[in-house]
């Protein structure tokens, strides 16, 4: 009886897998259609969902096969695991947004050694583990915009705190360094504590914000530099009844923050066009595969738009500040 049951299950499993293989045969068939794999930090994060939409548009336009996969929470080990799977599947290009650059770079070097084109976007890896980094904005640009915005809201003085993704996130760490540099310009702005990690989790960001408000009753502003952090911090401020006393700014998607901005909890969010980031990433990956883009090039053309290349960084453009006045005009 037991035997029958288990064998039945096994047979069923085999059947499912086989039938699936038929329907998928063309995609893995190894014809001329290039396969581009794209790894977000967290595929559940609205930021990356919006990225994936742009990426899919580019893939459709270019006629490439896009595989967009990643962990559903902060999980560097899962990122590595997925990339190693792609290497074994023999994809043509891999584009990654690294949660942790050290652990992912090893896997990416392996990919390069097998002739797979590697690039990074959003969050860089070690420079020798990829050809290009699609940089959504220069770190200075982001840091300066955020600090200037904070100074404006705080009248140039007072305590503030930073909520970040995780302490290993490469791009966030660069931004934090640049934010600290920029603070020299505003001697009365005081960063009260080390950046608080939220693991790209809205609930954790909310908890961190609540804690820091308890610990520092004079806190005037929370700056969240990861997208789930902004609504998380805003919710904490709202629940603590400190709207107006504690301000919230950060890097956030307009859609996630509209309500808070209109309610006056969040003053402004800063972001670039995430869809365009995904779009450009796939374009660059395709160009690398086709060989139309090589290391050392100085610019990259998509249609009639030209993107500047600074060293090995392909620049997306300047970030936008969204506030009460303009946030309703955007939908992403």
């Amino acid at each position: 009886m037991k035997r029958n049951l288990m064998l039945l299950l096994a047979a069923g499993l085999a059947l499912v897998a086989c039938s699936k293989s038929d329907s998928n045969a063309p995609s893995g068939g190894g014809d001329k259609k290039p396969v581009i794999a794209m790894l977000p930090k967290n595929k559940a994060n609205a930021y990356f969902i919006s990225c994936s939409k742009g990426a899919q548009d580019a893939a459709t336009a270019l006629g490439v096969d896009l595989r967009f996969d990643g962990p559903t929470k902060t999980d560097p080990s899962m990122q590595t695991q997925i990339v190693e799977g792609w290497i074994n599947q023999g994809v043509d290009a891999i584009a990654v947004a690294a949660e942790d650059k050290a652990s992912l770079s090893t896997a990416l070097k392996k990919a390069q050694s097998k002739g797979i084109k590697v690039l990074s976007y959003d969050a860089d890896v070690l420079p020798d583990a990829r050809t290009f980094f699609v940089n959504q904005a220069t770190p200075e640009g982001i840091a300066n915009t955020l600090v200037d915005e904070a100074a404006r809201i705080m009248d140039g003085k007072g305590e503030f705190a930073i909520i970040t993704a995780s302490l290993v996130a490469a791009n966030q760490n660069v931004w934090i360094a640049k934010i600290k540099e920029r603070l020299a310009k505003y001697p009365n702005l005081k960063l009260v504590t080390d950046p608080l990690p939220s693991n790209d989790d809205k609930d954790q960001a909310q908890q961190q914000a609540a804690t820091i408000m308890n610990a520092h009753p004079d806190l005037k502003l929370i700056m969240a530099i990861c997208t789930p952090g902004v609504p998380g911090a805003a919710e904490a401020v709202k629940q603590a009844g400190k709207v107006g006393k504690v301000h919230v700014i950060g890097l956030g998607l307009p859609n996630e923050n509209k309500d808070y901005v209109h309610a006056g909890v969040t003053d402004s969010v800063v972001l670039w066009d995430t869809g365009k980031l995904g779009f450009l990433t796939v374009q660059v990956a395709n160009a690398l595969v086709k060989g139309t883009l090589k290391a050392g090039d100085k610019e990259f053309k998509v249609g009639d738009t030209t993107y500047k290349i600074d060293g090995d960084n392909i620049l997306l453009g300047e970030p936008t500040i969204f506030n009460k006045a303009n946030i309703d005009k955007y939908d992403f």
Partner: protein
Amino acid sequence: MKKHFREWSVAAALGFILVALAVFAPPFYHPQPLLSLVTYEAPTLIVAVGMATIIICRQIDISVGSLFAVCGVCGALLLDRGWPCLAVLPVSMLLGALMGAINGGLVAGLGLPSIVVTLATMVTWAEALRWLRQGVLVNVGHAQWFGFTQGEGQLTIVITALVILLINAVGLRHLAAGRFIYAVGTNAEAARLAGLRPRLITFLMFVRLGTLTGLAAFLAAVQAPTLQPKPDNGLELKAIAAVVVGGVAISGGRGNLWGVFCGVLLLTVVSPISPALVYLGIPSYWGKAIQGAIILLAVVADGWRARKQKF
């Protein structure tokens, strides 16, 4: 006093911390942050109430975290579609009851060990949720705080949790059905010989825990404008820990809900998100270690007492 020594000692520890906070950190008692904290943990209390009776019944359920996430997400999706809160609540509870019934059916019906059954359903529901939702946030929007103001919403949630606790605590003590649960937990065969139906009671306990989890999930879902589907929320161990700290014996048949209430409060006060630690000058990242120490201390205290009683 002597009979409920275990419950009293947890209550005393809680009282001690609360007094210490009153003396050294009066701002802890600012109503708003305190209310937020209590609201945030109210769903845990509801789940712990269900978990306590499961454990009294000599079973365990480690799938509640997944059940909680599934019910929460389904509830939030319906709220997003514009369903009224009063219609979503029963759906969420029914869904919880259904999943609880699957656990209960496998445990009571087939006689499988509950820890393995609920381990399996935990993984299954969690991954199903991940697969179907890919972790995407669900917008609850207008339904936050049931559409009330924040203060009203928070009070509603806290009062609901307290009412659930009260009903269950009284029922468990003063209703024959409540005593049947103890009877089954302490000696299922004797319960059968005394004319009770242990399998049915066990089954119903799982259904009940599922229902309570559905309710708790709904009360958690309306606390923010968006809901993050998190199947690995650790709720099961949090609830079990609170129950164990509250003096319920893992071997069944012993403990009461007032102890569990104290256990939940104690673990809440020292949790990493509680302002208490900050006010007492302890960095919040020690929260989990302190919780762990309290759990271990409670466990060791139980063992020590049992050891002394033996001789």
